[in-house]
C-alpha cells in the first residue's frame, strides 16, 4: 500500500475513488433533495436552487447525480467481486489441474472471450421478465469473467512447478489447501488488478445498459440519467448541464481506476516504469 501511495498517479486515483465512496455513503446528506422528488418546474436550466437544473419530470439533476454514485459503486463492487470469484475458480482449476479439465475449461474461457459481450447482455436482459439492478449485475457477471480467468490460468501455470509447491505436495497438503494457502497469496496483486478491471467493466456496462433503457427506469444511475436526458429532450431544450454532468462524473470515476492501475502496472512491469 505505501509503495502505491508513493506513486503520484496512483495516489491521485485513490483520493478520487475515496471521494466517490464518501459521496455514495453520505448521498442523503449531500443531495439537497430526494432523487425522485418531482415537485419542481420541468426542464429548468441551472439555478441557485437547482445547480444542474431539473429533469423533464421536474426532478433535481444534482441530487440524482449524487445518488447515482451509489448505483455505480454497488454494481462495480458486487459484479466485480462475483466475476473475480468465477474467474479465480475457473482459471485456478484449469491451470492447476491441466489435462482434460484444462482443455474443457480453457475452451469455455476462450468461448467467453470471443462471444460479443454487449449483444449477449442485451439479449439476456431482453428475455428476462423483470428489469432491475439485480438482473444487470447477474448479466454483467455472466458475461464478464472470461478475461480474468485467462490471466489467472496463465499465472498459475508458471507458479505450479515452483519448489515450494512441490514441497507442499510432498508434505501431504491437499490440492485445495495448496491453492488457497500457497498459490493465492502469491497472486494477490494479479487478483486485485483483475478485480479493478472487472469492476470498471461492470460500471461501464451498467451505464451502457441503463442508457439503452434496459435497466429499471426507477433506479437512479448515471446511465438512466443519460437515457432520460436524451429521451426528455435535453438535446433540444439546450440543457447542457443535465447532459454533460452524468457523463463527466462517469469519466472521473473511470479515470480514478485508470490512475490506480498505472501505479500497479509500474510496480509489476519494470519496462513501463518512469524514471
Amino acid at each position, binding site marked *: 500500500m505505501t509503495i502505491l501511495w508513493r506513486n503520484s498517479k496512483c495516489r491521485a486515483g485513490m483520493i478520487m475513488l475515496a471521494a466517490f465512496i464518501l459521496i455514495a455513503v453520505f448521498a442523503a446528506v449531500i443531495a439537497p433533495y430526494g432523487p425522485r422528488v418531482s415537485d419542481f418546474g420541468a426542464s429548468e436550466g441551472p439555478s441557485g436552487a437547482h445547480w444542474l437544473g431539473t429533469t423533464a419530470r421536474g426532478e433535481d439533476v444534482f441530487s440524482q447525480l449524487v445518488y447515482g454514485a451509489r448505483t455505480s459503486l454497488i454494481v462495480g463492487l458486487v459484479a466485480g467481486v462475483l466475476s473475480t470469484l468465477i474467474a479465480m475458480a475457473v482459471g485456478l482449476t484449469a491451470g492447476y489441474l491441466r489435462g482434460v479439465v484444462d482443455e474443457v475449461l480453457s475452451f469455455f474461457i476462450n*468461448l467467453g472471450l470471443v462471444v*460479443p459481450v*454487449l449483444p*449477449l447482455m442485451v*439479449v439476456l436482459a*431482453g*428475455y428476462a421478465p423483470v428489469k432491475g439492478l439485480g438482473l444487470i449485475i447477474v448479466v454483467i457477471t455472466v458475461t464478464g469473467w472470461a478475461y480474468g480467468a485467462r490471466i489467472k490460468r496463465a499465472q498459475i501455470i508458471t507458479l505450479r512447478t515452483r519448489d515450494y509447491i512441490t514441497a507442499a505436495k510432498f508434505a501431504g497438503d491437499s490440492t485445495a489447501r495448496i491453492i488457497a494457502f500457497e498459490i493465492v497469496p502469491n497472486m494477490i496483486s494479479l487478483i486485485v488488478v483483475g478485480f479493478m478491471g472487472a469492476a470498471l467493466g461492470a460500471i461501464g456496462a451498467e451505464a*451502457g445498459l441503463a442508457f439503452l433503457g434496459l435497466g429499471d427506469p426507477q433506479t437512479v444511475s448515471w446511465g438512466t440519467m443519460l437515457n432520460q436526458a436524451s429521451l426528455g429532450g435535453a438535446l*433540444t431544450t439546450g440543457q447542457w448541464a443535465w*447532459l454533460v454532468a452524468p457523463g463527466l462524473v462517469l469519466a472521473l470515476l473511470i479515470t480514478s481506476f485508470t490512475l490506480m492501475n498505472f501505479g500497479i502496472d509500474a510496480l509489476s512491469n519494470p519496462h513501463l516504469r518512469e524514471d
Partner: protein
Amino acid sequence: MLYFLRRTGFFVATLWAAVTLNFLIPRLQPGDPAQALLARLQGNTQAVNPAQLAAIRKMLGTHDGNLLSQYWDYLGAVVHGQFGVSYSYYPYSVTAMIATALPWTLILVGVTQIASFAIGTLLGAWAAYRRNSRVDSVITLGSTFVGTLPFFWIGLLLIFVFAITLNWFPDGGGYGGGSSPSWTWLFFSDAFQHSVLPALALLITGPVGWIIGMRNNMVQTLGEDYARLARAKGLPRRRIALTYGARIAILPNVTGFAIALGGLLGGTVLVETIFNYPGLGRLLLEAVSNKDYPLMQALFLFTTIGVLIANFLADVTYGFLDPRVRRAEAT
C-alpha cells in the same frame, strides 16, 4: 500445420457452442417466450403462414417434445436458414430484416475500425519511437484521457454540438426523409452526411486501445537484445524503429483486431441507437424492446458467427505472420 488444424477445430467447436447457447437462452427463461409470442402473433389481423409458425416453434421452443428432439429440430431450422418471421416487422422474415440492416453496419464499422487501427498503431509507434519526449506524453496522456470518456456520451455531445447547436450535420437516421435507398449520387451523399457523426463517435475512442497496446509492445521490443545489437551496429534509428521494433510489436495488435470486432459490434448497439442509424445494433435493441424474440435470436446468432469467423481469420493470419506460434502449438 497442427496449428491450423487446432484453430479450425476451435472454430468449429465455438460455432457449435454459439448455436447451442442460442438454443438454450430462450429455453432457460422463466415463463414461455415462444407461447407468449405465438399468442401475440395470433392476435394479428393477418393470418400467419403455418410454415413460419413452425419455424418459430423450432427456434424458440414450445414445451412440446423433449429437449433433445427440440434441439434436433432447431439445428435443422438453423441449417436451412429458417429463422421465422419478425414480430415487429410482420410480415417480413427475420432474414430479410437482417439483410437490410447488415450493409449499414458493415460499412460504418468496417471503415471506422480500419481507420482506428491504422491511426492508433501509427500514433502508438510514434510515441514509443519518441519515448519519454513531449510527443510521447501528449499521445499517452491524451489517449488515456479520451479512453475514460464514456463512448455513448461522446455520441450525445456530438449530436448536441454539431447537429442541434451548429446544425452542420443531421441529428440521426441513415438517410434523409426525402430520399430512399437507391444507387444514385444524391442518396450516397445524403447517406454520407448522416454517417459523419456516428463515424466520428467511433473514431474518437476507437484508436485508444491500439495506441496504448502498440506503444507498450514496442517499448518492450525496442528494449530486446536484438534491438540493442542493431543500435550497436550503428543502424539508423528510423530503421531500428520500423524493422526491429514496430514489425514485431504489431503482431499482438493483429489478433487484437479480431477480438476488438466483438467489442465494436457491442459499441454499434450504442452508437446506432443514439444516432438512430439503421444498422444491426439498432435492430437488436428494437427487437429487445418489442420482445420480438425471433429477430433477437437470429441477430445474436448472426453477430456471434460473424465475430467467430473474424477471429478464425485473425488466428490464421497470425500463424502466417509469426512462425513461432505455429511451432509452439506443435510441441
